[in-house]
């Protein structure tokens, strides 16, 4: 597995940790935030927090698209699933997310046609093969996934596969990062920026964070060495009183990003305000289908959706914006567990709370 194994080398990890400790030694309390569910997952999976010096805290931000998908979207997906003749295709991540009263997993148990796919292309193939079914693909994801959704939709449109549609919940990360700094009482020393989102958008979108807020930004990959290197670069910026956008993940991220992917996005999506579960509305942070593609927009399918309900006591919003840790939530590990998730943070394996529950209890013991 080339270009994976080499970035998991334990000797190199040890060296990076030692350098981190050296730089961290002269710094006070430092809070860094990562805004990507895959970063959350990787940090927990490799036990990275355990290796960092105690004055360096890594906060998890709203970087899990599953976690920030509002109840209303799930409720609509479930309502569509219940319509006769509708097939829902989705990434596996969405299956256990609780809506107001049910989940896709439960609806599948009740007999709704819900299929898990790895790629929107697989969903498109199902639509082409089963023309008598109305195929609705749940378009959840950030800028890493949105181009794939867009490209698939363009193919469906070109090939006139009329029964293929997307229910878009695609979101943009930089506006969310801005929103975190605007309102919250966060004192962040740096952002660990999402490597694959940046593969698409490049490094420029983070410059306003540096220029307006003076927050160091390092774009990091997901292997343990990538994460450790990203953390090291952030600490070096802090130590040297710099605030820049730097690319640590140079093998996959170019400053200009992926121009073709960005063009494909513009052919399909338009930016609009979007609701982030637990946080609220963030201006210009969502992607909706252009009206030219309304034949494939599942939001235009007539369906009655139940009124949205939120869970009392759930502080997912505060956890997602890094203001509270899972351990500070009253429901955590009691009513709210990976088995019985009350909020989005617990559902996705990368959700901050799920990751903390599964992997983080060792930290409590320290």
């Amino acid at each position, binding site marked *: *597995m*080339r*270009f*994976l194994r*080499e*970035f998991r*080398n334990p*000797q*190199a990890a040890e*060296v*990076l940790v*030692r*350098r981190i400790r*050296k730089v961290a030694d002269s710094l006070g309390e430092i809070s860094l935030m990562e805004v*990507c*569910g*895959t*970063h959350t997952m990787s940090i927990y999976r490799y036990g990275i927090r355990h290796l960092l010096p105690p004055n360096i805290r890594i906060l998890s931000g709203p*970087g*899990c*698209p*599953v976690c920030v998908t509002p109840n209303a979207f799930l409720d609509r997906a479930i309502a569509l699933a219940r319509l006769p003749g509708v097939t829902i295709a989705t*990434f596996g991540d969405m299956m256990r997310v609780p809506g107001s009263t049910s989940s896709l997993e439960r609806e599948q148990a009740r007999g709704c046609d819900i299929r898990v796919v*790895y*790629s*929107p*292309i*697989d969903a498109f193939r199902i639509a082409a093969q089963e023309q008598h079914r109305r195929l609705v693909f749940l378009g959840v*994801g*950030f800028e*890493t*996934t949105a*181009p*794939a959704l867009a*490209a698939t939709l*363009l*193919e469906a449109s070109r090939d006139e596969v009329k029964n293929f549609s997307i229910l878009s919940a695609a979101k943009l990360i930089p506006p969310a990062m801005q929103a975190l700094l605007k309102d919250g009482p966060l004192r962040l020393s740096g952002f660990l920026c*999402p*490597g*694959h*989102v940046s*593969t*698409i958008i490049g490094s420029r979108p983070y410059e306003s964070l540096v220029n307006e807020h003076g927050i160091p930004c390092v774009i990091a990959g*997901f292997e343990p*060495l990538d994460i450790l*290197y990203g953390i090291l670069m952030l600490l070096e910026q802090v130590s040297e009183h710099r605030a820049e956008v730097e690319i640590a993940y*140079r*093998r*996959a*991220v*170019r400053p200009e990003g*992926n121009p*073709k*992917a960005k063009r*494909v996005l513009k052919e399909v999506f338009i930016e609009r305000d979007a609701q982030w579960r637990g946080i609220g509305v963030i201006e210009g942070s969502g992607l909706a289908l252009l009206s030219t593609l309304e034949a494939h927009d599942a939001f235009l399918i007539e369906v009655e959706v139940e009124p949205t309900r939120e869970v009392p006591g759930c502080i997912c919003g505060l956890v997602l914006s890094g203001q509270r840790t899972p351990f500070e939530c009253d429901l955590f590990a009691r009513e709210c567990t990976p088995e019985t998730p009350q909020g989005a943070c617990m559902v996705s394996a990368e959700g901050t709370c799920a990751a903390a529950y599964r992997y983080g209890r060792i930290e409590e013991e320290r």
Partner: protein
Amino acid sequence: MCLAVPMKVTSIDNDHATCIIGDVERKVRLSLLSEVHVGEYVIVHAGYAIQILDEEEARETLQLFADFQGDIGEMG
């Protein structure tokens, strides 16, 4: 939301490619990239190649880590 893996391109037919990681093969779309060649490594997310992996940069990054290792003596 960033789960993507480096895969080697083994065959190309317009926008359709076959890619491999370890010994797992999967059909991958190249519609988000302008020019890809057989033998190159691409980053694959949800069935789409989203970038060509820059092998030179990869080597340089690994070399940097190796250089750090050499600095250990100096760190004291």
